[in-house]
């Protein structure tokens, strides 16, 4: 459980860097009075950011993940039920992995 001073130093700098990015956005927003246009632009950010961490997981994962994601989108749009969509997604991954393992 000993903490190396060099590691501690690096971790503290990492913490400061991350917090600076977290606080920086707030600070920028408070600094400038947003125009209607900039506000509308900010309203679109959640959609873009939400897709960005999900897309690599799906696309880098291979065909299993892509098919599971498609199944999730379909169930989600059809039923509007999140639990149903999640169960479908994980179920599809497990089923396709099992098929994959049997075929190879």
């Amino acid at each position, binding site marked *: *459980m*000993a*903490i*190396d001073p*060099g*590691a*501690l*130093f*690096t*971790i*503290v*700098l*990492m*913490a400061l*860097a*991350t*917090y*600076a*990015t*977290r*606080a*920086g*956005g*707030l600070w*920028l*927003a*408070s600094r400038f*009075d*947003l125009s209607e246009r900039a*506000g509308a632009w*900010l*309203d*679109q*950010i*959640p*959609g873009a*950011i*939400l*897709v*960005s*961490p*999900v897309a690599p*997981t*799906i696309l880098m*994962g291979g065909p299993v993940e892509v098919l*599971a*994601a498609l199944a*999730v989108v379909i169930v*989600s*749009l*059809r039923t*509007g039920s*999140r639990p149903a*969509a*999640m169960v479908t*997604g*994980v179920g599809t*991954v*497990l089923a396709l*992995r099992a098929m994959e393992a049997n075929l190879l």
Partner: protein
Amino acid sequence: MPEKNISGTEERVTFTLAGALAGARRCVPIAISGCGIGLVFGTLAGQAGLGAGEAALMSALVFSGAAQFVVLGLWAAPMPVATIVLATLVVGLRHLLMGAALGRVFSKLSRLKAYGSVFFMADENWALTMGEFAKGRRDAAFLVGGGLLMFLAWTGSTFAGSAFGGVVEDPSRWGSTLLSQLCFWLSSRGCGRGDPTSFPGRWRPR
């Protein structure tokens, strides 16, 4: 300058315990899947040469899975401190946009509350909070409640994974990565059953 909503009335921003509890409740599935990722991070951190105390401290102070996983690949002796900090900064840049998006509501809080709250801003609880705001429920503590739960899950599971590493071989084989992403994505959707405008990308308050 008070912000006006569509109907022209002023919108109040609150910061209540009830809001924090609501945020924590909504983040329960995310925190559970976050535990799986934290166990993996702790295990990998151990392999990269971090002690359990160091790994847990990193999770507590940095609280950013994306940055921490990237840094593990750089962790070596002699420590490339500048590279590590720069990588952390680059991975964290998305927070600027996220914080700016919160800013329009958070600017109505005291500085202490606003700048204290954003420490707990992670992708998931931020997205849920934006969804709440879009529905007109403007309780800023929602972000902190969810973030605090995720913080405890992330830090605790990092320590556990680091101290008892090697127990979970590869949770992503069980679809846990996909599950956590889905929890995040689906739970962040706006309301409205079967309403295509509620899909991520259209967040205009109705």
